[in-house]
């Protein structure tokens, strides 16, 4: 019985998993395929991508032409349910009134969490990214090497399906041969950027995204992923056959009801449920972890959001994958005599060193792209190209005034029109009538945008704690955010803005964004890029970290944190693929411990 209600909960499970997003989905998949009995608690409502996805809806079939509003931050058709930077009934607070010291906390309260609408950019951390402190003396090293995680990156890529190429660039790992799906063809603005990027030494190459440009090989992959487990192979093969290749239309942020892209609800949860080993409770908001007399976790106390009653599930081990902030909140809210400062917090480090990605963007107008003959540029519902960080050598020589790298995400403007004027007023001045329509045709598609996605170094000023006064609608104390950018991030944002300006000019274009003087003028607020990680530092020393390299808390040995919380650094590479790889790795470890009777 897969989707259950509180009264159908089994007396005890092997593992209780909090959260159904990337980390929770991967964990449920790994554990149930290995035969462990799991219960998953999801705070949001159940969600059915087959029937709830807005695939081909046009702007004129949507309120306000589908544009963003405070209710739907990424547009009406975006697959975010009860979420955004605000969530009904679940507030959070800021320690400072200054905008640059505030954190925007994005959450989605739905089955599958943010994986229903994420960008699907799936980059591997490179070997430098696991040892940043050793390279420049800042932040923390991971107690892991690239080669520890490499097999799991490969497994996740085979399972979810990732397109891209192997370019062999510095700290930008290749995948083994045959793992990546074919890269989609470059679009006009991407190819034009690639050509002119060369002059500036910027390598513009195919990006990696979790979209099937080809159906997955259901005959071969399952045997590679689950050797010696025929049942798992069969379940996975069936699941893979239920996923179609992309049909090159419809924006991926809306989700994908042909299951061509990765979302937990279409890729991780169906095969996990098919094992018969998973019960899922939706509208179940975990408040604290239950601890036995032996000091081990033995279940989860949650609020049934429908009845508002407190309920419990019992399990031999607990995995929290509620997303960085929320995982911190659950740990801090689990206070008792044994754990006066919150669970797994003997070091006082829970909530510390939270990071986001450094974001800054510049847009420009490129005359060469004006009046292009109409052609289809929808492609794979997201970006096809990007530029990985390319200045490692200069940085090593001390030529840059910031310590870490950024990659460039890029976009053209030949997407689905509607909701805004394709011909900006400063170009067309007083045009109206047929003249206006000609101008609209001319300028449509001639704009480009470049975004910095850069590494933030963890600092003492960026953390979350419990607010002593404010509680949410369920009576649970909320998080209070503290935020601080260091000179590294601010200088990086400035560098990016100059680089993008130079790139646009190299293309014969002009910059549209405002000129900036300081990093603060251009850097996006903390949390705005929605890559928050950290808050339960992973390390080799129990006195200086919260988790070990198995995402296992030092204080409570059957408690695992399988989202971004344990990240000691936040490489410029978008975090989700790494969250999944580590969750799989931890899942294997839990299975091994269970077999030894150690749970």
């Amino acid at each position, binding site marked *: 019985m897969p989707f259950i209600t509180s009264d159908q909960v089994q007396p005890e499970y092997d593992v209780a998993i909090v959260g159904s997003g990337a980390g929770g989905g991967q964990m449920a998949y790994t554990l149930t395929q290995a035969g462990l009995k799991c219960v998953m608690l999801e705070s949001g409502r159940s969600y059915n991508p087959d029937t709830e996805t807005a695939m081909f809806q046009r702007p004129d079939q949507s309120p306000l032409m589908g544009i963003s509003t405070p209710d739907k931050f990424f547009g009406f058709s975006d697959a975010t349910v009860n*979420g955004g930077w605000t969530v009904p009934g679940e507030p959070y607070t800021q320690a400072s009134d200054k905008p640059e010291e505030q954190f925007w906390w994005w959450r989605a309260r739905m089955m599958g969490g943010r994986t229903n609408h994420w960008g699907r950019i799936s980059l591997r951390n490179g070997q430098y990214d696991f040892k940043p402190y050793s390279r420049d003396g800042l932040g923390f090293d991971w107690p892991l090497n690239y080669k520890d995680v490499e097999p799991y990156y490969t497994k996740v890529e085979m399972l979810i399906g990732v397109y891209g190429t192997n370019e062999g660039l510095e700290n930008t790992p290749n995948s083994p041969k045959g793992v990546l799906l074919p890269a989609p063809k*470059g679009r006009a603005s991407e190819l034009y950027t690639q050509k002119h990027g060369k002059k500036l030494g910027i390598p513009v190459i195919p990006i990696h995204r979790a979209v099937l440009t080809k159906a997955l090989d259901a005959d071969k992959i399952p045997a590679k992923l689950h050797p010696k487990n025929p049942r798992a192979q069969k379940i996975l093969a069936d699941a893979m056959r239920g996923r179609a290749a992309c049909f090159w239309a419809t924006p991926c942020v809306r989700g994908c009801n042909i299951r061509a892209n990765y979302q937990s609800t279409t890729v991780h949860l169906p095969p996990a449920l098919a094992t018969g080993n998973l019960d899922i409770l939706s509208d179940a908001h975990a408040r604290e972890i239950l601890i036995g007399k032996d000091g081990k976790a033995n279940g989860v106390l949650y609020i049934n959001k429908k009845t508002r009653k407190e309920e419990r599930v019992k399990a031999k081990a607990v995995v929290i994958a509620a997303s960085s902030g929320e995982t911190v909140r659950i740990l801090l809210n689990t206070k008792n005599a044994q754990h006066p400062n919150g669970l797994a917090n003997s070091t006082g480090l829970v909530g510390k060193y939270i990071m986001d990605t450094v974001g800054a963007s510049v847009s420009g107008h490129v005359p060469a792209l004006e009046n292009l003959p109409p052609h289809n540029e929808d492609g794979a519902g997201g970006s096809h190209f990007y530029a990985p960080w390319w200045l490692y050598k200069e940085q090593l020589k001390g030529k840059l005034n910031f310590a870490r790298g950024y990659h460039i995400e890029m976009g053209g403007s030949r997407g689905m029109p509607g909701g805004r004027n394709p011909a900006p007023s400063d170009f067309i001045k007083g045009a109206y009538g047929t003249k206006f329509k000609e101008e609209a045709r001319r300028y449509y598609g001639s704009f480009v945008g470049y975004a910095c996605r850069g590494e933030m170094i963890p600092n003492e000023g960026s953390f979350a704690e419990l607010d002593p006064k404010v509680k949410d609608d369920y009576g649970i104390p909320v998080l209070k955010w503290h935020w601080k950018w260091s000179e590294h991030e601010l200088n990086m944002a400035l560098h990016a803005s100059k680089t993008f300006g130079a790139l646009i000019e190299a293309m014969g274009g002009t910059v549209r964004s405002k000129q900036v003087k300081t990093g603060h003028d251009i850097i996006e607020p903390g949390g705005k890029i929605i890559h928050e990680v950290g808050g339960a530092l992973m390390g080799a020393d129990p006195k200086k970290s919260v988790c070990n390299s198995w995402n296992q808390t030092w204080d409570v040995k059957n408690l695992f944190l399988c989202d971004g919380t344990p990240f000691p650094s936040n490489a410029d590479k978008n975090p989700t693929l790494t969250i999944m790889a580590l969750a799989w790795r931890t899942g294997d470890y839990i299975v091994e411990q269970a077999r030894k009777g150690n749970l």
Partner: protein
Amino acid sequence: MENSEQQNPRLSRRTVLKWFASAAAVMQVGALESLNYVASAAEAGRPAAKGYGQDPDVSQYYNPGDFWPLTFTKDEKETTAALADVILPADQYGPAASTVRVPDFMDEWVSAPYPVQVADRAIIIPGLKWLAEESQKRFKKSFASLNDTQKRAICDDICWPADAKAEFKKAAAFFVKFRDVAAGAYYGTPEGWKAVGYVGNEALMSFDGPPKEVLDRLGVTQTVK
């Protein structure tokens, strides 16, 4: 550009920050239903309406008026249709704005409870009133009943703020805002897509990238084989 403003260049960072500030204010208080902008809506002199909330059924097709009541008066609607057709007339690129429901979409827009639209309403409704009065003053007729030459005579005076005479500056700001909203609506229709040269939103067997003609124009080659 997966989660950047690129997808919605209409929204400046400042606007988003403003939303956030108002959201944050509500958050400090604690209970947060859907964002509530009733106060600013009331200031702009319109009935408070509810937005669609954070969990609308997005799998449906919607028409203007499905989520909040439309508020244009008959005169406002007629003036809107007439001005939208001056800006987006029937021609070789496509049909006139009014034949693809642009006035309905604009009514939905100015009647919406969200801050961007509430601000636009404060420019558009007085602008429509000005246009009606100006038409009466100059030609003793409603704007919709003017002939093309008469309509253009007024539009030429107000179509660009920088060139407009002092007495027309405000109306010119209205014209630009109106043109933005009308174009946003027009180009969100299948007819508008054709008019602007958008080809897409249809399932394909393969994605072939830009055609040779486009590659040649740009002097690039397809680098993904």
